[in-house]
């Protein structure tokens, strides 16, 4: 179905509130491509991003890593462009390009002078449907990915630890597999696997175009229509339903020992709800909770108690991943000072959490967190690529433009009671994995010259 003269639905969501002063326009092409335009006219620069609503959690069983592998292969040739020509062309414009893969999305972006947007769209639209993958190039690139895994996972005890923790937290959901894939499964990926995944998921009706910078929405609409508009929608796009978590009935625990660990730590990961469209309140409360518990060490609940008062911890932290298509995780971490055992550290952390659940939120601290969130919206406007990221990952993770725009206000509306209700719900050890990172007794990594 070709839409030569598409009628384009256009919604301008501009609000002069200080919370969301940047001008954001969104519309959808007839073939289903969602488009978001963020204007920032300070510099004649544009960021052009295409986000696909497919990531590591959408991979077929046994094919972990295929989403990320395909992301690498997208820089090979198309029917009309040679391998490597894409990046070479961006460079020839003085631009930078790269790509990224997560559990819920795969994204491609270029940062170029604003008057080169046309060419970027032409090339990105081309590789949306015309990718060509010679076998020899695929196999060499697979070696590159294996070395990437060696560098970023095998070379980092913390990354190995997180892989174990995630695989234990998600008992059934594909979030359990690492984005880059399990080593043996990466090594077995074929060109056919890549083509099958590409054909199934890369289509305009499974993509979001985000253009941010010195552009006019009307110009973006015309260019998008010219380049992406002619690509037909994929009517056979698979529904995005993944296996969900069963009821978690018992805490899981593990210990990982590695010779390359100097500072042991305890990390606890709880299953936690994600932001959902028109239902972001609980996620907002959890976002505030993470800030209250583990934001600035000098003022946060964990930092104040364990680094400053009791002085048992070198480091404490709390983090929460709010943007995800399916329920995600809320994490706590404590690295004890030398001489304090991991058991003592874990007990201390749990005691502070129990005290917090009993005593509640310090109203002054909540007020300061909100002040910072309000200001962070002003500071965020200095980084248009960061704003583009928000819309891209949000829309690829089940949110609408209105949800992304409304998020700062949802955060401002969080009350102390909301925070406590969210905390009581999330801090359930039956739905958690606790890991201990310890130093292995192994002299191999001790060093010394030959």
């Amino acid at each position, binding site marked *: 179905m070709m839409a030569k003269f598409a009628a384009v639905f256009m919604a301008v969501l501009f609000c002069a509130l200080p919370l969301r002063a940047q001008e954001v326009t969104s519309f959808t092409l007839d073939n289903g491509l969602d488009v978001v335009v963020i204007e920032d006219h*300070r510099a004649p620069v544009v960021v052009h991003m295409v986000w696909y609503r497919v990531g590591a959690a959408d991979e077929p069983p046994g094919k972990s890593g295929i989403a990320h592998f395909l992301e690498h292969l997208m820089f090979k040739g198309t029917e009309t462009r040679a391998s490597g020509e894409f*990046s070479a062309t961006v460079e020839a*414009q*003085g631009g930078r390009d790269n790509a990224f893969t997560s559990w819920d999305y795969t994204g491609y972006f270029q940062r170029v002078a604003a008057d080169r947007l046309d060419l970027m769209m032409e090339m990105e639209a081309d590789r949306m449907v015309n990718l060509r993958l010679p076998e020899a190039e695929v196999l060499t690139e697979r070696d590159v990915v294996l070395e990437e895994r060696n560098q970023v996972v095998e*070379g980092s005890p913390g990354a190995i630890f997180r892989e174990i923790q995630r695989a234990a937290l998600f008992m059934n959901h594909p979030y359990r597999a690492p984005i880059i894939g399990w080593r043996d499964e990466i090594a077995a990926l074929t060109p056919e696997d890549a083509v099958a995944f590409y054909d199934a998921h890369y289509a305009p009706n499974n993509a979001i175009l985000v253009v941010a910078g010195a552009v006019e929405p009307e110009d973006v609409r015309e260019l998008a229509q010219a380049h992406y508009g002619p690509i037909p929608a994929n009517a056979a796009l698979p529904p995005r339903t993944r296996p969900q978590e069963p009821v978690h009935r018992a805490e899981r625990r593990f210990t990982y020992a590695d010779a390359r660990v100097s500072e042991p730590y305890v990390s606890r990961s709880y299953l936690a709800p994600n932001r959902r469209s028109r239902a972001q309140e609980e996620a907002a409360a959890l976002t505030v909770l993470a800030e209250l518990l583990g934001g600035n060490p000098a003022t946060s609940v964990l930092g104040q108690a364990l680094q400053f008062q009791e002085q048992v911890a*070198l*480091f404490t932290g709390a983090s929460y991943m709010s943007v995800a298509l399916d329920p995600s995780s809320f994490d706590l971490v404590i690295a004890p000072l030398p001489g304090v055992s991991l058991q003592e550290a874990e007990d201390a952390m749990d005691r502070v959490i129990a005290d917090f659940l009993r005593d509640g939120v310090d109203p002054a601290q909540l007020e300061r967190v909100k002040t910072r969130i309000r200001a962070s919206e002003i500071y965020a406007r*200095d980084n248009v690529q960061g704003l583009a990221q928000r819309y891209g990952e949000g829309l690829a993770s089940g949110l609408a433009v209105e949800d992304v725009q409304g998020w700062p206000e949802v955060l401002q509306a969080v009350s102390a009671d909301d925070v406590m209700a969210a905390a009581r719900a999330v801090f359930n050890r039956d739905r958690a994995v606790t890991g201990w990172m310890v130093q292995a007794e192994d002299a191999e990594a001790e*060093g010394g010259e030959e």
Partner: protein
Amino acid sequence: MLRILSFVATLLIALPAQAQIDIREVESPGGITAWLVEEHSIPFVALELRFGGGANVDEEGARGAVNLMTGLLEEGAGDLDAAGFAIAAEELAASFRFSPGHDAVSVSARFLTENPDEAVALLRLALVEPRFDPEAVERVRGQVLAGIRSDRVRATAIAAQEFNARAFEGHPYAAPIEGTEESVAALTREDLLRAHEWALTRDRLHVAAVGDITAEELGDLLDRLLGDLPASAPPAPGEAEFSLAAGETVIPFGAPQSVIVFGQPGLDFDDPDYFAAFVMNEVLGGGRFSTRLMRELRETRGLTYGVGTALISRDHANALMGQVSVPNARAGEAVELIRQEWARMAEQGITAEELERTQTFLTGAYPLRFDGNANIAQILVSMQAEGMPIDYPNTRNERVMAVTVEDVQRVAAELLSLDRLHFVIVGQPEGLAAAE
């Protein structure tokens, strides 16, 4: 009263688009010079301070003093303890980052237009009246020691430290700015007070501000912020001699990959051949997908996720350095490939087509860097630290375009030397011809 020394309307002739940025040099009533870009569309200011000196002012027996001192600036100042300071910053929604380096201590501040006076008063406390309370000193010392211990079991850190220790033997550059476990454990409050007095002075200070502020407001603000700092610092250390010879140093380490840090002497930014060397490095290994090293090691052989080289231009030393992680079994092959590319570049230089492609990229990419108040403030401070004139952005692309194939050929032949190229390899490398 504010005296405006000069006003330069800088037109960046970005090849495709035109980026216009007005950089003004202003001098405060108290005599502090700053570069300013007024940008009133977002209600905040990015302020960047660079205090020259850095860890180079550490005394021989007190390595790590400047690093620890910098880590303590926010941990209690004036009448505020660490928590009090953090609460005050949160209430203002201001943020301060203090970054120690070999050559400088950098301060990056952001504050809202609605409360600049309060934010600057708070930052002044940290810079001028840090308390160095014993409890805070011990807490931050513990964090620094943990970082040093974790670097001892991190292959990339081991490789870089070994390289620096051997390349710059006898100079402060030989040691990490954090110091050693022994030196940090021995640091006294007096060491910290001296580091503070020597590392944060007005004579080696560079300042840039970008955002919602006028020249007059900035001058007034700078006098309040910095007027009480000491005027001068002790003399800088001498030049560091690059003392590594060709060869390979292997440090056994248990991991599937070998981390390889390699390098040789470089050249100074002031050197008339700098831009030719810069263009040459872009072609050789400058960090993009299309460099020769990326093509040989990654695209053709799948040996690595990434390889890059860079001209390192520090205040007292220069080097051309690179890094790559490869499978242990193919470490020898990688080292040999890097040597081959080194030799090929030294003998043949680059082609006219490579020169044109690189010039197009560099000149097109340059204006794209001036994106965002915080980014621009950092660029402006770096320009000042390198001694560039305020109209440098106008001339920079001309300098890149002036480089010829012959320039690169000559500079490559003079600079690149297999007789000086040293490899530090951390891992269990196989296939090395002859390890030292």
